[in-house]
C-alpha cells in the first residue's frame, strides 16, 4: 500500500497569527477602498473641470502617482513623514492612545505604520479609481444630460441624480477590479512594517521553516478574498446595481 509522508500542518498558534493577518489586510483594504473612492470622485471631477488649472493639476497628480512604484511611495511617506511634518505632529501620531466610543467600546489607535500605509495606498489607488469613474461618466449618453437640463435640473443636480447613478453602474466592474488591486497592493505595506497577511506569512516561514504551508495558507486567503469580492460584484449586478437598461424601466 502506498503510504504518504505525514503532512506537517502549521500549529494552531500560527494559524491564529495568520487569521489576525487576514483581518488586518481586510480592515486596511476596506479603509483604503473607501478613502480612495471618495478622493477618486473628487479627482475625476477636477479632471473634467472647465477650469484648465484644476484639470491640469489633477492630470499631473495622476501621472506622477501612476508612474512611480507604490513601494517607493510607501517608503517616501513612511520615512519622509518625519521631515515633512512638524515634530509635534509626528509625536502625536506615534503616541499610543485609544479612541473611546459610546457604551464603553474603545478603538485602539492604529500604529504609525498603519496610518502611513493607509495614506500612501489611498493616494495611489485614487489615481486609478478616478480614471474608472471618468470612463463611467463618459459612458452615459449625452442625451441624458440634455434630458436633465430640459427638466430644469442644474448642472450639479443633473450630475447627482442623472449622470452619476448611471456612471457608477457602468463603472462597477472596473471599480471592483480596482478594489481587488487594493487588496493585493496591501501586501506591499509589509515593507514598512504593517503586520498584514504577507508580513505574517513571512514571519511564520522564518519561525517554522514550513515554507510551503506558510505561503500556501496566505495564498489561499488572498484567493478567497478576491473570489468573495467577485461574488459581491455578481450579487450587486443582479440587484439594484444591474447594468443600465437591464431589467429596469
Amino acid at each position: 500500500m502506498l503510504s504518504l509522508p505525514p503532512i506537517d500542518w502549521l500549529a494552531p498558534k500560527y494559524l491564529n497569527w495568520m487569521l489576525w493577518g487576514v483581518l488586518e489586510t481586510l480592515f486596511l483594504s476596506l479603509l483604503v477602498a473607501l478613502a480612495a473612492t471618495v478622493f477618486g470622485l473628487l479627482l475625476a471631477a477636477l479632471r473634467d473641470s472647465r477650469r484648465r488649472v484644476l484639470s491640469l493639476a489633477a492630470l499631473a497628480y495622476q501621472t506622477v502617482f501612476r508612474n512611480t512604484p507604490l513601494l517607493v511611495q510607501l517608503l517616501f511617506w513612511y520615512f519622509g513623514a518625519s521631515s515633512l511634518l512638524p515634530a509635534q505632529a509626528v509625536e502625536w501620531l506615534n503616541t499610543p492612545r485609544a479612541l473611546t466610543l459610546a457604551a464603553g467600546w474603545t478603538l485602539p489607535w492604529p500604529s504609525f505604520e498603519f496610518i502611513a500605509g493607509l495614506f500612501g495606498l489611498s493616494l495611489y489607488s485614487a489615481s486609478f479609481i478616478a480614471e474608472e469613474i471618468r470612463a463611467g461618466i463618459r459612458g452615459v449618453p449625452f442625451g441624458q444630460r440634455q434630458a436633465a437640463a430640459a427638466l430644469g435640473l442644474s448642472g450639479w443636480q443633473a450630475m447627482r441624480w442623472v449622470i452619476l447613478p448611471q456612471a457608477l453602474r457602468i463603472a462597477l466592474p472596473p471599480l471592483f477590479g480596482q478594489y481587488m488591486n487594493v487588496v493585493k497592493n496591501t501586501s506591499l505595506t509589509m515593507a514598512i512594517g504593517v503586520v498584514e497577511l504577507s508580513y505574517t506569512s513571512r514571519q511564520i516561514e522564518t519561525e517554522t521553516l514550513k515554507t510551503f504551508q506558510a505561503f500556501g495558507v496566505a495564498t489561499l486567503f488572498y484567493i478567497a478574498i478576491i473570489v468573495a469580492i467577485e461574488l459581491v460584484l455578481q450579487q450587486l449586478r443582479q440587484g439594484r446595481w444591474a447594468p443600465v437598461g437591464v431589467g429596469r424601466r
Partner: protein
Amino acid sequence: MNAQLILDNLPTLLWGAYPNGPLGGLALTLLLASLAGLGSALLGVAGGVALTMWQGWPKRLLAALVGFLRAIPVLMLIFWAYFLLPILFGVDIPEIATVVAALALIGGAYLAHGAAAGLAAVGRGQWQAGLSLGLSRWQTLRLIALPQALRMMLPSFVNQWVALIKDTSLAYIVGVSELTYVATQLNNRTLVYPTEVFLFVGLMYFLLCSSLQLAAAHWSRRLRVA
C-alpha cells in the same frame, strides 16, 4: 533639500558597485524590467493563442492558472519563486532569476488574458473569411487574426510593461540590489534625508515609465500611418 547626498551616491544609485562588483541600482532595474518584459510578452502571446485555439480541459486548466496568477499579489508569487524554486530544482538559483521568473509569469498572465480578448475582438467574420479562403485554423490565426489583435493590444502591452517596471521594485523584499533596495540602504545608512532619497528614486522610475509611454505613443502613431 540636500542634493549633495544624492550626488555623492549617484554612481551607486545608477549602476551599483559595477565594474568592481555586481551590477545594481537603476541599471539592474532596467535589466530586470527588460528580461521580465520580454518573458511576459512571449508568455502573454503564447497564452492568449492557447486560450483561443485550445478546447476542453487544457483550455480550462490554462484559464484556471491565468486566473490564479491574476488573483494573488505579485509579492506572494515572488516569495513562492524565491523560496520554492531552489527547493524544487535542488540547485541554487540566483535571486535575480527568481524575481524575473515571477514578474514574467504575472505579466504573462495579465497579457494572456488581454491577448485572448484581443483575438476575440477581431471578430468572427475575420475567422470565417480566413477559413472560407481555404486557410487552416492556425494559418488564419497567424496571417489574419493575430496581426490585427496585436495592433489593438499595443496599449495594454504598454500598460503592463509600465506596471512591470514599477513591480521590479518588489525585488527589494528578497534583497536584490536594484534601485529601490539601493535607496533603502542609502536611507538606512544616513537616516537624515529620506525625502530627497525617495524623491530622486521616484523621479528615476517616473522617467523610465513615462519615456516608455511616449515611445509607445510615437510608435503606435507610425503603425497607424503605415
